[in-house]
């Protein structure tokens, strides 16, 4: 592509991104106009109910961001709603209603909610904690908060709560405008955020958190920040709810309300923003109208619809309804390359080198045990820049475990791992990436629903913070990554969803993503497994080039000795958790020991001797 064409396309891409944002802002304006007009068009009862529904919808939006986009199933958003509501109700019941009190109560409620959310994040996203634990904690949280409110005696009003306190002297219309414009603005902001470069990160975490960590992204911190942000928005909605209704009760913080939010989001359509908002408003409004005549039947209908949607339509109702409309109206996304970033070469960075110019990676007395099983024992190994060291050995020799011990400080049982002279200690994978480690997994470990360009953008997130509101028009990648993309043709597939790539292309994409980290030590676990012959020699050529021309230190696990022979500068043989041979290609391939290990035990030794 010529410079001029590339420049033109970049402008087109940027304008694609800004055009979408402008469209959303226009829609938001229409929404605000509707909010302004609605109180004059609807009867007072409906307006009254809608204020509550709109506030609930704000909370549903946070559930959708957490669960629909990021995969954090939370039953506990109600707890934060209750915290906000009680901040208002308690302050106004026990203190005089002055602007200062109102503001301090508001900020105090938000701060408590944020602190609790941070605690939940710390509990749920610690190292080695099971992924379902966050759902457990968020289930426990509303139960605990409710019980605390119960035990508050006259201060909290116990099980009946508090009501009739002095509150803001605002008209129904004003409350409607506050709730409605808050919802419109939040929805628009959330839409812009989830469609931005940074927003793709949420989907990436949901899909493959491990890969995110190995791209150097601190997913635990990000998820905690999301929880905190969601808690703050929810607490603000709760504060407004209490100010408007003049009632607070423990049920606001309860587990049933928490699960109802999940139901509304699921029915509307998780991961669609507009679905949860519409679902919440419709269900809450209808509930209010039917609460007199058919309360139980309506709840039964909701329950039935929920089960049917979860089993048969996991994407929810709004996408189904909207699908037909969209098919009529919208042009197929990125059919003309619109919105795709332009690849650029990132300025070369000085390569990290150890202070003493020593080996790129050095292992001292490394061991790994699982209970009494010794998988690795007394591993001493050093490799320098420009070396391509192949690790070979039979199944169960400990090759993949060795790779894992270099990339994750928690993995080893004993010994030390130095990268560029720095001890990795017990650091998590995302920190090891910072020392210059890049790990490619055995089976292609990528983000299936993202596009090629989005995957690469995430791989660069460490170097260039992704924009939280738009899609950048260009994507700068280091030479080595560009080379892999050009050699495999990935550079012509930037807009393709990864799930539509062939197996070989996924392997190449993961390699390009790892190279986009600009590692100084590259760990590759069977990069050619399942590839065709042509693909294998292509990857082999690229790897030797990376070591030779880019000075990378490459550790390669490989079964195929033909392949190893062609590209390695050194071969290390692992057997039963120990290094049994470490030498040049000629030394190792010709060795009788290797024949023994690979062929038939004693007999082969006899054969080799004879």
């Amino acid at each position, binding site marked *: 592509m010529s410079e001029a064409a590339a420049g033109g396309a970049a402008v087109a891409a940027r304008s694609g991104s800004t055009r979408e944002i402008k469209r959303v802002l226009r829609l938001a304006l229409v929404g605000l106009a509707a909010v302004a007009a609605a109180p004059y068009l609807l009867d007072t009862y409906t307006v009254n109910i809608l204020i509550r529904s709109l506030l609930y919808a704000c909370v549903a939006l946070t559930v959708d961001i957490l669960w629909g986009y990021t995969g954090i199933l939370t039953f506990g958003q109600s707890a934060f709603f209750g915290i906000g509501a009680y901040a208002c109700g308690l302050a106004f019941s026990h203190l005089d209603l002055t602007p200062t009190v109102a503001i301090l109560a508001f900020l105090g409620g938000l701060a408590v909610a944020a602190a609790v959310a941070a605690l939940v994040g710390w509990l749920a996203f*610690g190292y080695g904690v099971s992924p*379902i634990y966050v759902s457990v904690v968020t289930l*426990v949280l509303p139960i*605990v908060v409710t*019980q605390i409110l119960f035990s508050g005696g006259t201060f909290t009003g116990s099980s009946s709560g508090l009501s009739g306190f002095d509150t803001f002297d605002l008209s129904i219309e004003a409350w409607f405008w506050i709730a409605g414009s808050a919802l419109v603005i939040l929805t628009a902001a959330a839409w812009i955020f989830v469609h931005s470069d940074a927003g793709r990160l949420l989907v990436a975490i949901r899909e493959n958190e491990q890969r995110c960590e190995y791209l150097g992204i601190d997913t635990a911190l990000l998820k905690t920040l999301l929880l905190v942000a969601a808690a703050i928005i929810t607490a603000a909605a709760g504060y407004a709810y209490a100010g408007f209704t003049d009632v607070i009760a423990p049920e606001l913080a309860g587990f049933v309300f928490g*699960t109802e939010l999940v139901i509304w989001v699921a029915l509307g359509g998780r991961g669609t923003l507009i679905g949860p908002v519409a679902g919440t408003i419709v269900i809450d409004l209808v509930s209010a109208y039917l609460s007199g005549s058919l309360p139980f039947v309506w709840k*039964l209908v909701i*329950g039935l619809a929920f*089960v049917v949607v979860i089993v048969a339509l*996991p994407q929810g109702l709004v996408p189904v309804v909207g699908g037909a409309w969209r098919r009529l109206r919208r042009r197929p996304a990125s059919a003309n390359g619109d919105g795709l970033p332009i690849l650029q070469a990132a300025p070369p960075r000085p390569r990290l080198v150890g202070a003493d110019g020593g080996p790129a990676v050095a292992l001292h007395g490394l061991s790994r045990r699982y209970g009494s099983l010794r998988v690795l024992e007394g591993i001493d190994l050093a490799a320098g820049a420009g070396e391509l060291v192949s690790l070979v050995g039979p199944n169960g020799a400990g090759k993949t475990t060795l790779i894992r011990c270099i990339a994750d400080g928690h993995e080893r049982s004993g010994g030390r791992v130095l990268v560029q002279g720095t001890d990795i200690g017990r650091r998590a994978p995302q920190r090891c990436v910072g020392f210059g480690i890049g790990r490619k997994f055995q089976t292609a470990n990528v983000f299936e629903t993202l596009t090629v360009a989005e995957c690469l953008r995430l791989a660069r997130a460490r170097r260039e913070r992704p924009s939280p509101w738009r899609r950048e028009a260009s994507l700068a990648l280091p030479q080595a990554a560009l080379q892999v993309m050009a050699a495999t043709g990935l550079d012509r597939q930037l807009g393709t969803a990864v799930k539509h790539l062939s197996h070989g292309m996924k392997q190449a994409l993961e390699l390009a993503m790892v190279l986009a980290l600009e590692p100084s030590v590259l760990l590759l676990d069977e990069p050619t497994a399942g590839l065709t012959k042509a693909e294998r020699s292509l990857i082999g050529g690229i790897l030797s080039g990376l070591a030779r021309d880019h000075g990378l230190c490459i550790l390669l696990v490989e079964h195929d000795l033909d392949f190893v022979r062609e590209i390695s500068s050194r071969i290390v043989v692992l057997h039963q958790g120990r290094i049994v041979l470490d030498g040049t290609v000629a030394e190792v391939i010709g060795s009788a020991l290797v024949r023994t290990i690979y062929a038939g035990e004693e007999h082969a030794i006899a054969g080799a001797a004879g």
Partner: protein
Amino acid sequence: MSAQFLDIVTTAAIFYVVAAGLLIIFGVMKIINFAHGGFLTIGGYAALIVTQLGLDPWLALPFAALVGLVIGALVERFVVRPLYARPLDAILATWGLGIIIGQLITIGFGREVQFVQSPVQGAALVLGESYSQYRLLLVLGALLLAALLAAVLHGTRLGLMTRAVIMNESLARGLGINSGLVRFATFSLGSALASLAGALITPLSSVDPNMGVPWLVNAFMLVLVSGASLVSLGVATLVLGGAQVLISAYGSPILGSLTIVVLAAVILRIRPQGFARE
């Protein structure tokens, strides 16, 4: 002192009975059945029907188990089976089922609190204490249930197949075990156990359409800290149930009601496998 001891033992027994059905479903199918509370409620209302018909209160137990078995079988076939590959969605769908069960019961029986006749009344003198005979009987019931489950799991071909599926489903299939059938049988049995438990606990308090929910939450936490082991469940109910009794007595009833969920959450954070061996 001895009253407290009896409280601990009987409380643990009640929790054991309530959580056993949830545990075996979790063990075999690796999904949490959030309709467990609904099945408990079904059992409670089955007992209520028996009372209203003026039948022998003991009949409530087989009747509740039978109703649970049939409904559980239908639920497995039409709701749970399509969700094997989506365990989180299975939680949500079974929670939805719990709502459906609660609403159907409300429509059928009204939402008010009702009482069930207890098959055994009065107190017995144990360890120098006059103690509720029915609660003591529940200890016997829990022991019987544990023995029965152990006998089925360790003494029958079905139990052997079930254990094989728990340990390694893929290998079990290669040895000729229809693991889908084992899952179906397990879910039906687990639902029957839940309803049986519902019928067993109702004489202690009362029935209402939402009676299952608080039990569900405690049972869920107990199962999470027990893994797939009935022995761990025994330990967990004794330790956590015991803590609940003591904290209620010496702290406050409100703290007591939080004991199991909070302690279980703390245990799981420190030791993800909880009371299970590995």
